């Protein structure tokens, strides 16, 4: 029999897949273009700083102790906002009568730009962290409530009948039937809520604050410290996407999808 060519790469020499190669090529292309534009002087000076400068700014940012204090302030505001907004959204969305009564309002109010409520929040809660927490709360309330309402609607009636036939108490129905059955939409709602809570809180910080990551970003803009602004945005994007993925992982969204 004629010998055919070797199709499998030899052991110990892992070959890169075409997809990985394309990804590497795209990243390399973007970085080279960026560096070329930075060196060319086509744009205003410092608008596109060299990658080396951005890398140095990122390292300085991560080594700066005050950065972690600001990060802690923002994390506290986002966390509190998510907790209050998430719980109230869950309470409203999980109640059949309330969700049917208010779902139309939630559906149409949900996509309105929440930052326009910031002047009201300042008047109600002052210029400190409380108004930022309120912004986070308003932002995440809608996606969590809508997801919980949708989850409640989609619970298999058979599961509810099984619970009733076992004479389950209200608490048992909530913990054994409703919450497990609503897990996927609720986790997805919390993921969406987390994203918009981060945006709401940080935008409020950029508008009026003297602490938090939003303040650092707008401060870097005011002082035209572009490398620091790029560093802040890069770290913020990595953190946001990472936290979002972590919530999905902890909530077992992937395992549910596979099932």
């Amino acid at each position, binding site marked *: 029999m004629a010998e055919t060519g070797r199709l499998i790469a030899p052991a110990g020499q892992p070959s890169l897949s*075409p*997809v*990985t190669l*394309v*990804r590497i090529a*795209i990243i390399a292309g973007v970085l080279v273009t960026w560096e070329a534009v930075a060196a060319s002087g086509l*744009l*205003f000076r410092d*608008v596109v700083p060299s990658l080396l400068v951005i890398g140095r700014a990122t390292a300085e940012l991560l080594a700066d102790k005050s950065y972690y204090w600001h990060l802690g302030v923002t994390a506290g505001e986002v966390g509190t906002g998510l907790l209050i907004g998430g719980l109230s959204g869950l309470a409203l969305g999980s109640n059949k*009568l*309330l969700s*049917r*009564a*208010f779902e*139309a*309002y939630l559906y*149409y*109010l949900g*996509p*309105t*730009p929440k*930052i*326009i*409520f*910031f*002047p*009201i929040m*300042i*008047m*109600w809660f002052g210029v400190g962290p409380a108004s930022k927490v309120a912004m986070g709360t308003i932002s995440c309330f809608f996606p969590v409530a809508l997801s919980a309402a949708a989850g409640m609607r989609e619970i298999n009636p058979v599961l509810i009948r099984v619970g009733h036939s076992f004479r389950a108490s209200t608490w048992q129905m909530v913990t054994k039937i409703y919450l497990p059955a609503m897990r996927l939409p609720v986790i997805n709602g919390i*993921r969406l809520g987390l*994203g918009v809570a*981060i*945006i709401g809180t*940080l*935008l409020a910080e*950029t*508008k009026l604050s003297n602490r938090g990551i*939003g303040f650092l*970003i*707008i401060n*870097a*803009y005011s002082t*035209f410290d*572009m490398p620091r*602004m*790029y560093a802040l*945005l890069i770290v*913020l*994007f990595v953190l*946001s*996407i990472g936290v*979002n993925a972590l919530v999905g992982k902890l909530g077992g969204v992937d395992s549910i999808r596979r099932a």
Partner: protein
Amino acid sequence: MIARAQRNFLPLALGLGSLIAVILLVEVLIRVGLVNRFIVPMPSQIAGAFERVILEEDIPHRFLVTAREAFWATVLLAIFGVGIGVLLYRVKLLRDATETWVAAMASAPTVLMYPLFLVIFGRSENTIIMMGFVAGLPAVILKTIEGLAGTRRVLIDVGRSFKLSEVQLFWKIYFPAALPTMFVGLRLGMIFALINIVGVEFLINFGGLGQLINDLAERYDLPGTYAAICFVILVSVCFFFVTDRVEKWLRPVD
């Protein structure tokens, strides 16, 4: 049937009744002095401020400015979002390499890049349009890919049996089949764009309706601020309602 009507009426009555009750309660609490009227204006004052805000603050012009920004952001979304979506669908390797990146971009807080866009485009409409465009782009790309990938095999086979060229196959088969899903993406993109446009207008104090709220808040015109916020909410709700209806009209019946 009566029981069904009662079942539907109760939530509707509860929703509307609660809204009216809250408005009346706030009015009463302010009038008796339990709520500070310098923090929360009376709902009757807010209702009265509508006419003043519409006439004195040139609402029609501001509305047109915001609408113009939203229009250009939508045009950019339709050209680049759909274009990139079609490209990624056609080149599978590129799609496999970048689809997760596009999805990650959708969950990234891109609106926080507005100071960067201010530096690049200046404090102008261009910054606002670009912020709207960037916010809506991932949704349009992902939905375009989803729509094209969901074209029924039998339709493609019919096209091939008629020996259609690739261009004809796209315009006669793929595009009409993917149009409802593409519109869903465009609608989502427009929603994200509008949120960002009004938000950035407010933040940078420039443009149409968003700037109006900032202006009135800085003047400490409380009834005016609340009325302007109500107006923006009304515009948003009308926009979502209309696009929602169009989406339902476009959606094929299974």
